[in-house]
């Protein structure tokens, strides 16, 4: 019995020690990791949805609080110091689960003109070879510089061709973009105050 108690104590103690160490390490590294994750996980998608900027959208990111209280990280595209567009992630329901879509917008605060500049799939669990083809360029290209109007599948009266045999996945993607447009419209007023007035060298 005594031996068992010793066993339990030693093992628990070592585990706690390790927990303490790891938590400390985690605390120190957390900000670095977040930055790295954004750079390398969302970075490529962000790059894909907008061209022509000369800033680092990840470094210039800002977090907005939406009406329903959720937080949203928005990545701005600046040219010189002028805001040319933004990108953020949005979600829609697919066949196998949520589909994460990075939606880019070209936006001119002065004229308040906005289009979808492109989309990139960040996360999805669609059936390989079928639903997963929403990630194919043929499908994604359709969103390039697409106006807000007509953002729906052809079957729903829009002008986006669904991926053959993967209506649900296609719908999910389009839904995510639509949600993003709604969110965009909700917060676009804050963009120019956040980035637009910046006059930096």
């Amino acid at each position, binding site marked *: 019995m005594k031996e068992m108690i010793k066993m339990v104590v030693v*093992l628990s103690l*070592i*585990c706690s020690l*390790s927990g303490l160490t790891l938590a400390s*390490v985690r605390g120190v590294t957390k900000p670095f990791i977040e930055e790295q994750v954004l750079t390398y996980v969302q970075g490529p998608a962000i790059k894909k949805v907008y061209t022509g900027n000369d800033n680092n959208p990840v470094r210039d990111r800002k977090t907005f609080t939406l009406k329903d209280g959720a937080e949203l990280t928005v990545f701005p595209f600046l040219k010189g110091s002028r805001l040319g567009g933004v990108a953020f992630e949005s979600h829609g329901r697919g066949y196998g689960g949520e589909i994460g879509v990075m939606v880019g917008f070209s936006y001119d605060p002065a004229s308040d003109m906005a289009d979808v500049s492109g989309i990139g799939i960040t996360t999805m669990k669609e059936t390989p070879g079928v639903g997963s083809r929403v990630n194919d360029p043929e499908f994604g290209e359709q969103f390039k510089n697409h106006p807000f109007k007509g953002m729906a599948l052809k079957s729903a009266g829009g002008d986006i061709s669904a991926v053959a045999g993967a209506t649900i996945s296609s719908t999910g993607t389009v839904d995510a973009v639509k949600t993003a447009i709604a969110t965009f419209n909700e917060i676009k007023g804050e963009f120019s105050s956040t980035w637009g007035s910046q006059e930096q060298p």
Partner: protein
Amino acid sequence: MNRLWKEFSKGLWNELPPFKVVLGLCPVLAVTKTADNGFGMGLAVIFVLTLSNMLVSSVRKVIPAKVRIACFIVIAASLVVCVELLMQAFAYPLYQQLGIFVPLIVVNCIILGRAEAFASKNPITYAIADGLGMGIGFAMSLTVLGAIREIFGYGTLFGVQILGSWFKPFTFMVEAPGAFVCLGLGLAGMNALTNWQRRLKGLDAIEGPKHDCASCGMCNIK
């Protein structure tokens, strides 16, 4: 000092893993697509192996025999999580490349094998020397293997194009089959070298390296 050097240097050639002692094959196969992947994995292993040897050696006297292995695993696992966090924070692309093989360092037999066979029986300085030597040897092997596969598979080395445009990469080399065959040929080459040396000394040739996982009797199940 002499012994210290001996414990350190044995991992660099005489007991070079995985060629001389066949330990920890999975990462060797999985992460040697390119030289820098192999090098990165090697660094991670050096870190974990050295520290785990150090820690195991320093606590070897207070741990009850029954939970010995469990404690070694916890120590190794904590170090691996540290590596995971550090890698995510400072070398995220590498972390992505190595994938699940970073957490799997914890079950690499080289870690537990050295802990059980060496660190739990030797003083801390030697344990560190052993871990460092073995780790560096392992990293060397991974880098060399990665370099070979990268040159033939992509025509590049550490990401730099070294073979001209005439070169048509063997995709085989960077896929799973190439990994197995490369490692097999590597081992065979190492055996041939050992046998050649033995023959020069007038000794008889020996057959392949023997598994040396002191913590596991897997190879002898009959």
